């Protein structure tokens, strides 16, 4: 039998505790801004956990996951706006400011949109897959900015942060804890999927699709399922992101966002359980530390990314926890 507590488990636990400790320390030092920073990390990590299912486990380099991040954001923004103005939605369905309901809507909408996008995109592979997912996401982006009813280019403000039963979401710490809790749930889901029969097939589809077909499993079905689940989780993160900023920006839908999510995963270690968490920490830290010094912080990020790709292919998790072993 293998050791129960691996180096990776220790690294994962430390990262989880570190992220949890930051906001409490920040509150103690009366620096609420850092709570917001930690919340941002948790949300981006959750979005990347979603993408990590498609990209990390399945090898599907989706350059269009901003579509789902943004759709989640618009679900939160649109429902909140309708509720704020006391206007029912289509067919007289009442709008809501309840986070759990909004999350459900984000999950369902993203699943329904991902299914056809995946079904078309997964007919291609490699660079074509990257380009076609990008194209779909850009279509949704242009659609959003040309639709004045929901803010067009200006985006949608959420005047009062959406609510969660029994929690004052206006305060930074409770909001962080909600996002952190969902991040942990996302990680549990990723871990469960990875170790399941579905996960075995999905990882085999990345390693060698011919092998998968040779035993009688069609890679397409497995990939489409992965793409859809992946999109739903990224969409959930998008709903949280809108609530954190109390603003849904069309930039959530833009290709920069898709690129950012890929960067997070590569920085953290693709396919690794805590890769997205490590990646999001590093990313937000850079954005904050370098962003204050120079406008061109993304140039430095690019250089670091190049270094990771060239010299530390397992990303940060590969660096701290060593190579991954599969049973």
């Amino acid at each position: 039998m293998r050791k129960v507590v691996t180096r990776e488990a220790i690294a994962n636990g430390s990262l989880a505790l570190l992220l949890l400790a930051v906001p409490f320390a920040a509150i103690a030092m009366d620096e609420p801004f850092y709570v917001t920073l930690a919340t941002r990390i948790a949300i981006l990590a959750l979005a990347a956990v979603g993408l990590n299912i498609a990209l990390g486990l399945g090898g599907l380099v989706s350059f269009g996951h901003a579509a789902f991040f943004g759709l989640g954001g618009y679900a939160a923004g649109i429902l909140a706006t309708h509720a704020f103005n006391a206007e029912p939605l289509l067919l007289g369905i009442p709008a809501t400011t309840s986070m759990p309901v909004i999350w459900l809507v984000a999950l369902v909408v993203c699943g329904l949109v991902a299914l056809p996008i995946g079904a078309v995109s997964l007919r291609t592979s490699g660079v074509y897959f990257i380009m076609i997912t990008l194209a779909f996401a850009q279509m949704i982006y242009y659609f959003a900015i040309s639709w004045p009813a929901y803010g067009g280019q200006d985006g949608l403000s959420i005047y009062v942060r959406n609510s969660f039963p029994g929690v004052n979401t206006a305060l930074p710490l409770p909001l962080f804890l909600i996002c952190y809790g969902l991040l942990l749930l996302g990680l549990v889901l990723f871990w469960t999927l990875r170790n399941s029969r579905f996960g075995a097939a999905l990882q085999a589809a990345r390693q060698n699709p011919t092998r998968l077909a040779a035993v009688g499993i069609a890679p397409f079905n497995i990939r489409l399922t992965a793409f859809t689940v992946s999109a739903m989780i990224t969409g959930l993160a998008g709903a949280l992101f809108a609530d954190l900023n109390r603003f849904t920006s069309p930039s959530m839908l833009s290709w920069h966002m898709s690129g950012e999510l890929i960067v997070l995963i590569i920085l953290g270690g693709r396919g690794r359980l805590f890769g997205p968490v490590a990646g999001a920490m590093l990313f937000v830290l850079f954005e904050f530390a370098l962003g204050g010094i120079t406008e061109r912080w993304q140039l430095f990020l690019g250089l670091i990314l190049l270094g990771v790709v060239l010299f530390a292919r397992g990303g940060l998790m590969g660096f701290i926890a060593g190579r991954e072993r599969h049973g």
Partner: protein
Amino acid sequence: MAEPVLEIRDLKKSFGALKATDGVSLHLASGEIHALIGPNGAGKSTLIHQISGSLTPDSGKIRFLGQDIAGLDMAARARLGLARSFQTSSLAQEFSALRNVMLAVQARQGTSLRFFRPVMRDRSLTEPAMAMLERVGLAGRAHVPAAELSHGERRQLEIATALALGPKAFLLDEPMAGMGPEGAKNLTGFLDTLRQEAPILLVEHDMDAVFALADRVSVLVYGRIIATGDVDEIRNDPEVRRAYLGEPA
């Protein structure tokens, strides 16, 4: 005569001007090992690819278990019971030997859309997979990633995954290649018993193995079958000797 398990009629496949498969007809009867021999570049692998579904023929028919399988992709053919091994082994490289076989076990059970139970603690996967590794003599290497196995071990692993599918026919493309005399001898003994489970279409260069195992032999040269017969007929066929066995007629 009972209907053959696998029947190929007038199959044709060209790569540009090259006729890689030029009107091939052959069949595989239940309980037999049908060896397909021929010089390098004769089109043996190309034929296996078309039967398994990784290449589409230009024309001709392939019937398996009485069904025309032209419209089926590789995965669907595997589910019908066509198991293959590859000339250049094709495995999930990061997965251990055990997990490669477990993948075949779960495929046979048709349970790849299960999302919760961890596979490594699922004895309905690990036990049958381990049994297959034992059958091919690879149990001691169960937890080694496929990428770290030796060439010969990878061939054994491919056979184990094919076995785990519980197939109705085996397509084996040069399973002995790179195995060394000891391994080839063991595998020959193993294949000899395997034909009871399902018939084998065996592409092989090792003539000792072919002559020891084959019920029938077909000789493929430049995409055409120039002779089919039992081992003695093929040994004594003047055209085969000239074209392939490299002896003066």
